[in-house]
């Protein structure tokens, strides 16, 4: 059995276990004995014990199978190869695999035993692990079956398992953070060995062009990240300047003024804005918005660079409107009607009610929505790369071209690179610093929300 059919088999067993557990509990109850928990809890417990361990085993097996098989294969390789370097062994094993599936490479008689062994192994492990998985599932059924008694605390047990699952889920976020730190820390560390953190954090010139090739220009490159952070700030501010008022007003309009039909269609329509690929926005910003801005600016006698922070910021603002509008609309909608009634009853107009009562009550959610939008703006790359350019100017003029941290990260990682040049490593350092900066920002935001959060009802 392959993985998918095994998973299906386990799921079927799981369903069966649920019914079995429930019915057993019911049978006990029908003898007039009072159960600690509902029959469904016993069913759920049985299902959990039937499903979880085998699925876990499957996961571990999936991760461990390949290395184990390869390990077993080594023993079957000709002596000469076994003595060889690890890469030789590695290659031979790849070859054995490809021979085994008959992928059209020249046969090698000396590998014949290994190939046969592999085919054999694959069949046996398949049998073995299907067997193990299924028997584990059956074991779960049997053990739980025996444990089901009237006074068994099935609900408590189910709940504590579910609680652990919930806990593990929230652990994913923490692990992600650790993973990100782990995957940038080493390289960032190396970078700070080459460039002083002080220069990096406070330097105002960003020009990462260092020699990648021996015969390339030898300029040492300067790694002052201030212009990047300033650029990120500028563009995010412009984007928020569009997205927050438009998004919030749209949310208010949709939840307080619009007829249900309009809301029903307009809200998802706006949500589409979040899903348009950023390449499309990039083209839009670079080819539609930027020229308009340039012409407008020039007609007013302003010097507008053909790649302006304004164009990128405006379009990015449009893209993140739904983050503000939809999430705010949800929280605004969740404010109890009685609060609105209280305000209307005092003779407040709709807008007063919204501004004075509804928004404050929905504030934590709205701030959350805005933070999400800000985050998205900070993390966005493509639009800026296409419309605001890559020149690291330190300026507050939205008509100038600026670049952002993320754009630099992407260009450094996607363009030509060298594994140990500060130019490439700088991407990791930027990632790390951005991570820490936004961490502080979020900390501040959380504190603000905590201060102003008001419970209603």
């Amino acid at each position: 059995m392959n993985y998918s059919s095994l998973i299906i088999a386990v799921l079927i067993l799981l369903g069966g276990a649920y019914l079995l557990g429930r019915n057993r509990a019911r049978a006990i109850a029908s003898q007039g004995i009072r159960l600690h928990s509902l029959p469904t809890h016993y069913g759920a417990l049985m299902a959990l014990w039937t499903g979880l361990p085998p699925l876990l085993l499957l996961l571990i097996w999936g991760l461990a199978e390949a290395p184990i098989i390869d390990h077993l294969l080594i023993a079957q390789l000709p002596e000469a190869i076994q003595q060889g370097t690890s890469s030789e062994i590695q290659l031979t094993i790849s070859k054995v695999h490809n021979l085994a599936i008959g992928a059209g490479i020249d046969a090698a008689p000396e590998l014949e035993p290994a190939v046969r062994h592999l085919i054999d192994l694959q069949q046996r492990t398949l049998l073995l692990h299907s067997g193990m998985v299924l028997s584990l599932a059956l074991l779960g059924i049997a053990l739980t079956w025996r444990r089901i008694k009237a006074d068994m605390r099935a609900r408590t047990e189910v709940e504590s398992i579910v609680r652990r699952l919930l806990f593990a889920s929230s652990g994913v976020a923490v692990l992600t953070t650790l993973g990100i730190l782990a995957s940038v820390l080493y390289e960032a560390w190396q970078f700070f060995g080459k460039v002083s953190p002080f220069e990096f954090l406070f330097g105002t010139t960003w020009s990462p062009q260092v020699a990648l090739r021996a015969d390339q220009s030898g300029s040492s490159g300067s790694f002052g990240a201030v212009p990047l952070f300033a650029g990120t700030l500028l563009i995010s501010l412009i984007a928020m300047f569009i997205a927050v008022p438009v998004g919030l007003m749209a949310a208010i309009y949709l939840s307080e003024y619009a007829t249900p039909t309009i809301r029903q269609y307009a809200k998802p329509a706006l949500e589409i804005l979040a899903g348009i690929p950023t390449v499309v926005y990039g083209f839009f910003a670079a080819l539609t918005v930027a020229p308009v801005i340039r012409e407008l600016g020039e007609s007013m006698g302003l010097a507008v660079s053909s790649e302006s922070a304004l164009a990128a910021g405006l379009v990015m603002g449009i893209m993140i409107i739904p983050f503000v509008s939809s999430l705010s609309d949800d929280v605004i909608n969740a404010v109890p009607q009685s609060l609105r009634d209280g305000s209307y009853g005092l003779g407040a107009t709709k807008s007063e009610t919204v501004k004075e009562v509804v928004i404050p009550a929905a504030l934590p959610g709205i701030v959350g929505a805005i933070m999400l939008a800000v985050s998205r703006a900070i993390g966005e790359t493509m639009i800026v790369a296409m419309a605001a350019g890559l020149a690291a100017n330190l300026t507050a003029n939205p008509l100038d071209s600026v670049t952002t941290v993320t754009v630099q990260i992407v260009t450094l990682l996607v363009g030509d690179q060298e594994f140990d040049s500060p130019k490439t490593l700088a991407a990791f350092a930027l990632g790390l610093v951005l991570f820490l900066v936004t961490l502080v920002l979020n900390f501040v935001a959380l504190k603000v929300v905590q201060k102003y959060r008001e419970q209603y009802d």
Partner: protein
Amino acid sequence: MTNTSMSTREKVEKSMVRRRAAEKRFRVYGMASVLFGLLCLVGLFGDIINKGASAFRQTVIQTEILIDADYLGINKKADDQEIRNADFEGLIKQHFKKLVQPEGRSERRMLYSMISAGAAWQLQEAVMLNPSLLGQTMSINLIADDDVDQWFKHDRGTELHNNRMNETQVKWLEQWIEQGMLKTQFNTLFFVNGDSREPELAGIRGAITGTFLTLLVTFLLSFPIGVAAAIYLEEFAPRNKITEFVEININNLAAVPSITFGLLGLAIFINIFGVARSTPLIGGLVLTLMTLPTIIISGRAAIKAVPPSIREAAFGLGASKMQVVFHHVLPLALPGMLTGTIIGMAQALGETAPLLMIGMVAFVVDVPGFVNDPSTVLPVQIFLWSDSPERAFMERTSGAIMVLLGFLVTMNTAAVMLRRRLERRW
């Protein structure tokens, strides 16, 4: 006191002028905001459709061609391999040479460049399906080269034209048009083919399947995990520094540039766990990490919005915490969670940068069958095509964007309908 009362009324009346205006303004701002958003949407859509609609039509050359078994050197019993090795390209060249009689080598080259490389595969396939065609004359719509396609669809009769079609070629084309040989037909290949370097053969089936599989993985992982994490953090986690740290952390993850998730995926999933590069599985895993914060944050906001009185009522009846959450809080919070999911998934659907790091920015011709086959996704396909030199890829880029948007709209509609059923005000 009557005086005061009168004066109150007067004060209110007096304030009304200002307030009515404020109310009207507020309403107008709201309406304008919605309209602005919708206009942007319409503008973007219009632009894309305008550019991309022509991608759905393909120019073909209708011709009667003799499948010369002798030339091909195969007979009716030939197996697939033999057919594959046969020189159909040469056959087509012969055919067209007879048709227009080019003079000299350079004219021959001009002529051959007008027929797609796919034409030979078309014939090959026809013969493979039906070996009895060998030795017969068949009528077939051979795919024209992308340059011919562009000329026929856009440039014919205009001065402005990239000199990919020269006078001789135009002469031949005009001749074919007169004979009714040149025409456009619905571009089925665009939907049934995988990627190709020949614009006229390039299709999005591989990318669509890849997108579907990738998003499936993303959704199956991110929605349950996101909802579960939101529930845990909001309802179960003790309020302390650790929870606070986790909360900040999650908010922070939302601001992590998406390419960083690619780095993470590369470092953890590929290098440590040995997941294969360029597969929907690894793509889905990376996008899950990226989507999770959005779902968790919106989920928590939605849970927070559930009034405490409802929880109290359930607790008072002896519901356990878990029951309160799953019977009362979750159903009320689900619409909000769905919003987060819709936005998060939409974002995942349009994402390119992190996929760069995990090998999904790739040329993959074969349509993936399952989550561990090499594949690419629509936004990447769009990104790659948009950077291709061939002019014909421009309209295909827009065409692919239209398909992506169609995908997005379908996905959102389903979720929105679900959300609407769950939504209620209390």
